[in-house]
């Protein structure tokens, strides 16, 4: 629980931060809330040479009503996402999921951009973003670009964001009929399984966390969804799902939870 030595920079602008990333490459890590990174450093699972603290950079926090979308600054804390009226009214699933992350201390420090960039396989927000078909805006040496949620999560703790890019904003559609159902052993824990279901017109998008390296789209269940058949559709939620087994749950139980929670998420979303 004692980290290795590292250097620390606190740039005042995004350009300076990008410049530091360019110079230090893979040896640098961005520090936002630090609630995933610092525990990994204490366990020496992460040994960055340089921490680039983003907290002095203006303009990366806050929630903005952007017409059909809601735009959220990357450094906005889970607490602020959870308590935002704009999010609660426009995209209640995101507000709900942000309120389920870790415990209050984690939500007070952890950020939406940090959580997505970290891409922990048991985290809540990746599945939520995938189900919503949201997107992130990143800035790098070549300027800004947008990455769709479906392209963002590549592998275990790995995203499509380049080593010299920084998430600046997260955008989700205004979509009320969506719900996230999380199953964890203790309140503060990662999801054993979490299911985000978004109903968009007549179709459903279902993303499952905790069952693999990246969020799993339950395509069979999505295809079966007719608008009111949660039990029938959710029975297919684990089709193609090959979850891991660990001290939290066996693969079988995770598949079972995927089905149960998908049913609940579909019903909750349909009720919104």
């Amino acid at each position, binding site marked *: 629980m*004692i980290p*290795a030595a590292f250097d620390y920079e606190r740039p005042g602008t995004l350009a300076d931060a990008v410049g530091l990333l360019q110079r230090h490459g893979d040896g640098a890590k961005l520090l936002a809330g630090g609630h995933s990174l610092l525990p990994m450093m204490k366990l020496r699972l992460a040994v960055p040479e340089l921490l680039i603290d983003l907290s002095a950079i203006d303009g990366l926090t806050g929630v903005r009503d952007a017409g059909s979308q809601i735009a959220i600054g990357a450094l906005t804390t889970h607490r602020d996402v959870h308590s935002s009226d704009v999010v609660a009214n426009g995209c209640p699933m995101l507000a709900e999921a942000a309120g389920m992350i870790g*415990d209050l201390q984690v939500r007070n420090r952890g950020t939406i951009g940090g959580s997505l960039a970290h891409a922990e396989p048991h985290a809540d927000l990746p599945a939520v973003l995938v189900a919503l078909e949201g997107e992130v805006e990143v800035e790098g040496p070549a300027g800004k670009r947008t990455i769709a949620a479906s392209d963002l999560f590549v592998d275990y703790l790995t995203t499509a964001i380049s080593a010299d890019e920084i998430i600046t904003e997260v955008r989700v559609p205004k979509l009320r009929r969506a719900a996230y159902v999380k199953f964890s052993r*203790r*309140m503060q824990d990662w999801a054993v399984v979490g299911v985000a279901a978004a109903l968009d017109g007549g179709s459903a998008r279902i993303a499952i966390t905790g069952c693999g390296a990246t969020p799993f789209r339950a395509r069979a269940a999505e295809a079966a969804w007719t608008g009111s058949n949660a039990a029938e559709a959710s029975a297919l939620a684990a089709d193609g799902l090959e979850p891991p087994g660990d001290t939290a749950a066996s693969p079988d139980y995770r598949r*079972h*939870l995927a089905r*149960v929670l998908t049913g609940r998420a579909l019903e909750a979303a349909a009720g919104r």
Partner: protein
Amino acid sequence: MAVAVDTTRGMGASALRKEDGELLTGQARFIDDIKLPGMAHMVVVRSPFAHATITGIDSTAARRLAGVSAVYTADDLEFAAGVPCASNPTGQVRQPERPPLAKGKVRHAGEPVAIVLAADRYVARDAADLVQVSYDVLPAVIGVDAALASGAPLVHDQYPDNVCVVIENVTDGVEEAFAAADVVVKQTLHNQRTIPGAIEPRGVVAHWIGSSDELMVHSSTQIPHFVRTFLAICCNVSEAKVRVIAPDVGGGFGGKLNCYAEEFIAAAASKQLGAPVKWIEERSESLVATIHGRAQDAHMEIAADGEGKILALRAHYIQDVGSYLQLLTPSIAHLTLFIAEGCYDIPQVDLKVTEVFTNTVPTDACRGAGRPEATHAIERTMDALAAEVGISREEVRRRNFVREFPHPTNTGITYDSGDYDKTLDRALEVSDPAGFEARRAEAKSRGRLLGRGLSTYVEICGLAPSAVTHAIGLTPGGWESATVRIHPTGKVTVITGTAPHGQGHATSWSQIIESELGIPFDDVEVIHGDTAFAPYGLGTYGSRSVAVGGTAIHKAAGRVRDKARQVAAHMMEASPDDLEFQDGAFRVKGSPDRSTGMGEVAFRAWQGFDLPEGVDPGLDETVFFDPPNFTFPFGCHICEAEVEPDTGRVEITRYVAVDDCGNVVNPAIVDGQVHGGVIHSVGQALYEGVIYDEDGQLLTSSFVDYLIPGAPDVPSVETYRTETPSPTNPLGVKGIGEAGTIAATAAIVGAVCDATGVRDIDMPLQPERVWRAMNEGGAA
């Protein structure tokens, strides 16, 4: 919950705790706050393997790192003795030698192999990664079944069956009783391995003062005097030159009731290095460096007549002791055996404890220490008996309760006092059993299954009469010391041999003084935990502090009062027999205007002139109190829990605790102990469990995987009391620190089994386990 604050703060008042101001404002001084000039920081290099031969240690690279003072292995530090075990219940316990740093072989993952000393902790930690240890890995023995299997690898080559000790207690007519029984129920209970999990990990600051050959050790411990004695033995230094100080200690739960390798290593390293040495246990490190608890299987059989009256109990316990014996390891399952019969009058017993070595962290006392295991085993088996006979779980208990006290058990101890019907009645009265079916129906309407469980327990605490500790193979006695000193200004210092680490002794001991001497609570200072100030004290564990340490204070205060009475009588030219003592002053009976306060007496005793014939100066008395018996708190806990059938998730919806710990010094503190104790066992029942893989790697290696419940995960606990004074001590007190932990698991598991209709489920009742139990044979 609001706590009523009494204006007087003697025995029985819910006085606010004196300790809390410092603790709540961050002013308390814990081990990591101790900083000595020139101090080196120690990091321990530990074995990554459960069982291996050490073939070489290369510390060259570590030594070269800037800031590193030294790297020591077993070859560099001298010890006159190994890590001590002070328990030998049968005289036949196999006690393997355990050097503080491994010599030649390691026997559990986490065993200390080398240490690094550096000017700062970060450098020491970096250097630890550079120490190259070569191992030849040996097959590991994980779990008692594997250890007892024929041909199992040996944890210690000299013990060919991996058995540490067998303890038996068998009466003459067991076979006949089983043969004559109408009903026999069998049940096997697994009490899983847990950790104590104190919020403050352990830590040591050792300072060998070379100029005078003195050793000063700060340690986060429950037993500073034991640590002193064993430091003297292990490090070969005069005990008169060893001072051990336990500063504020952030919880123990038994995990600090031990003398650990790191304490001896830090002391020896300080001597070798010529500088103070500090070691602070890392949180993850604590999971492999501090003892574990429980890890006991119980194979239970009860023979009963057709009415459910017990004829005989057969209980065979298999205890996983881990790789070595810590201070009290062999005695923990022995405590299980002592209390195996629970609250019940059982004519015949066949009790057997088999303790087994495995390649895991040693087990030892963890809150309750043997009694939670015993209670879980007997109570769950009583539930099975009720089901078999077809009577209620309450009724089967009533048909077997002990009702005459003192009650000698078949295990050679004597329950001091009790009224088990009373606590059961009270628990039923407050928990509305009549409304249960309606609540169950309401839960069912929400898709939930509601169940109800109960546990009627008796525990053995107030350790202990020294004659008994000797008879059961414990090296130390079970007495406690206290000094009560009245200063010339009338203020009081109490020096206690107890070693509080969250229990509120400063508060409770001040209340005893206020009651005994009439000196206000606020005028009492309680000193503990420093062997330079205190007479030898045995420390705090086994719910002993109030029954033994509190009684010592009561007696020392009584001696002070007796002496003060003589001085006061002399001052007032009256006979001591004509004085009455009230509100801190002596008055001449019949002449209430003639009075002398305790402060005036103390001042005169300090001045020393004109004292009565034969009375020495000073008001300062020390008492060593050896209790004539243990105390036996008891009670009834009732739990209601809902199960979500499609996931197996358990939610405790109501928890009622009725405890009887005799007379109560501070009701708010007692309630707090019950809350904490119950929640400790909510952790064991629903969440916690140490898991090793078959190679002996700890899978629950952090608090992400070892699930100590947080505040949102636990129920509110309703506490109620009956008060049946103990005849064992003049205060009539028993002990409460472990009661909740001892009672709770059986009530919780019982509730879940009642809800699901499953006969038994192994703890922890994590959702998958409950779901599987409900769907056994079903599709997964």
